[in-house]
């Protein structure tokens, strides 16, 4: 549609006030200016009012000693002597942990249930339907309460724990598992694992290239699985198994040692995963149904087996429909994790927008930081999913 502008007659001269470009620019500057002014006025007003009421402001409090405990900090060593800023970091990681677990399991549940919903087997599809309709239509907070108070009450106390072979213990204080302890020489095993993963990436590339050039398929998945299991075990055997297990033991009131998963984390992650999983199942079903039946018939006509048809013909096309709404489900799940505050899981809302807010009284700064964190996480998830969507989208030639 490119038009040679030299052949066009020169536009007639108009007064600046009637020039559409100048007018558009003028109004844009006006709108932007008034928004900035209004924003500045709000900030200024807030500062004035806080000062006149004698409420402290500023971000200096982040350097102050916290003085309170955080019930669960799996990644960092936290104690009362650390600062509010460090408590923010701990609580922020706890939010990311529960959101990460939730997204992973919601996706798995969602894909299984979505495919099951389309099954020709009446029982399977009806069960999937019941699951989806039940989970979607009960408020999430109630589901969290159900998993927390309902299930927690049914579990025994620490001294009567459910004992799984003396290694895993379940009671109303959580799940206690042995944690691996790495001795010197384990670095070799780690190196082997990393090298194997790099090797698998190259293998996959080679297999894809071969497929494109010769049409010969290569069982990449099974080969990789075998490699990632066998090679590290071999390496560990050579080094004389340089690792042990730190078992959880009942001492005094509770279990100590090993890995502890508190019931708050379990019930929150479970509720988030099953709730969002139901929505994802519907998205997956819609995605698969959006692929025209002609595609499947064409694949069958070419003699492609049903399993491969699903994986290589239907799913790649369905993903294009699935990914955008899937992204918003991931965002919802992450934001819904703030309901943690209801069951005492120490996430950013409970610890930072709760305890820290109470101890310092600096509501404006703290809520701003908390909102900024959720915004940042959501934008990162969106960015990643947009990139993934692009790489999955139809390439037109």
């Amino acid at each position, binding site marked *: 549609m490119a038009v040679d502008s030299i052949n066009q007659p020169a536009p007639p001269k108009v007064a600046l006030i009637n020039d559409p470009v100048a*007018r558009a620019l003028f*109004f844009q500057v*006006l*709108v932007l200016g*008034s928004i900035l*002014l*209004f924003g500045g*006025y709000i900030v*200024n*007003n807030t500062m*004035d*009012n*806080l000062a*006149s*009421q*004698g*409420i*402290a402001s500023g971000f200096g409090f982040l350097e102050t000693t916290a*003085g*309170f*405990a*955080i*019930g669960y900090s799996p990644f960092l060593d936290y104690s*009362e002597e650390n600062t509010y800023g460090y408590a923010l970091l701990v609580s922020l990681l706890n939010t990311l942990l529960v959101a990460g677990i939730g997204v992973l399991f919601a996706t798995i549940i969602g894909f299984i249930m979505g495919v099951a919903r389309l099954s020709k087997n009446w029982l399977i599809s009806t069960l999937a339907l019941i699951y989806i309709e039940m989970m979607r239509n009960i408020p999430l907070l109630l589901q969290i309460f159900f998993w927390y*108070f309902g299930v*927690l*009450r049914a579990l025994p*106390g620490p001294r009567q724990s459910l004992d799984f072979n003396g290694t895993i213990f379940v009671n*109303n*204080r959580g799940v206690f598992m042995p944690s691996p302890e790495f001795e010197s020489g384990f670095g070799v095993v780690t190196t082997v694992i990393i090298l194997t993963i790099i090797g698998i990436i190259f293998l996959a590339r080679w297999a894809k290239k071969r497929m494109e050039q010769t049409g010969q398929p290569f069982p990449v998945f099974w080969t990789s699985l075998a490699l990632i299991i066998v090679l590290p075990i071999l390496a560990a055997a050579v080094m004389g198994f340089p690792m042990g297990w730190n078992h959880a033991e009942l*001492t*005094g*009131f*509770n279990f*100590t040692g090993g890995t502890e998963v508190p*019931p*708050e984390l379990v019930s929150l992650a479970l509720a988030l995963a099953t709730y969002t999983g139901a929505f994802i199942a519907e998205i997956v079903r819609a995605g698969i149904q959006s692929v025209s039946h002609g595609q499947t018939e064409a694949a069958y006509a070419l003699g492609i087996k049903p399993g491969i048809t699903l994986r290589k013909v239907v799913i790649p096309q369905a993903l294009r429909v699935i990914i955008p709404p899937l992204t918003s489900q991931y965002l919802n799940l992450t934001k819904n994790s703030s309901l943690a*505050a*209801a*069951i*005492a899981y*120490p996430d950013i809302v*409970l610890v930072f927008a*709760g*305890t820290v*807010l*109470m*101890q*310092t*009284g600096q*509501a404006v700064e703290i809520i701003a930081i908390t909102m900024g964190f959720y915004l940042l996480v959501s934008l990162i998830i969106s960015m990643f999913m947009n990139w993934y969507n692009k790489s999955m989208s139809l390439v037109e030639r």
Partner: protein
Amino acid sequence: MKKSITAFAAVTAAALVTTAIVTPASAGPVLDRVKAKGFIQCGVSQGVPGFSNPDEKGNWSGLDVDVCRSVAAALFGDATKVKYTPLSSKERFTALQSGEIDVLSRNTTWTLVRDTALGMNFAGVAYYDGQGFMVRKSLGVKSALELDGASVCTNLGTTTELNLSDYFRANGMKFKGVFFEKADEVVAAYDAGRCDVYTTDQSALAAQRTKMKNPAEHQVLPEIISKEPLGPVVPHADDQWFDLVKWSLNVMIEAEELGLTSENIDSMKADSKNPGIMRMVGVEGDTGKNLGVDNNWSYNIIKQVGNYGEVFEKHLGESTPIGLPRGLNKLWSKGGILYAPPVR
């Protein structure tokens, strides 16, 4: 099209002018606000028996509630002119700072940071409390010093949470904290066995114990690990309102010392020649004028709400299910530390 653009420009310009003229809004004196509304908006707990608890009809009662009622009696001559806002420990200060409530009477501990950095003033002490621990009797624990490694449930954002950390740190012990926003959730979690220990102010322990499935299964350990002076809180920037709340509380304590009760005050008003009593019933002096209220203000408080001793016995005393002893909260003349400055 042209017209709409012009109109838009006019609106934008108007908006600019308005934002420039309006000066930053400051919370006007609380007393004026309360008088204009005709009632007091009182921030209370979400249900602590004896302090502030609603009955099945939604009527609030308790010691903290009566503090608010006494202010209403002083200001309006009618103790019923109070509306209640139930607040979690997390919400309470923001509600006061933002002007959503006029006075916070919600077993809140007086500390330096709260008094100075949060834009509010403590108007006295309505109950002297201390933090204690509750455990199941079946654990066989006799002292708080045996609690190393225990799981502890409590409310988040309270002085309790900080005292707990301090106490375990000072004694070289460890604990696993589980912190809830609502008192009901703490009780439910402790009752479900999520925690070995429930810690909060001793008065609240006694009150919450009545809510448990089997109150007899639990015991309060002897240690008191902190000072918890609980009292009403008002926002900064209104000294008159501060005075009114402070003296409404003081009158209840002074009335007990003078032997004035809701029952005998009418006969005392008619007969008494004691100048202290005559001032309290509004016959002599002009205490009301100085506070900016009716001279019958203290009479109204005692008549409609009662003196401190009556209020305590009614809501917390030995005859109630909570059954707290007066302890520190006896009058100074009877071995306690309750001491009101002279009302004159």
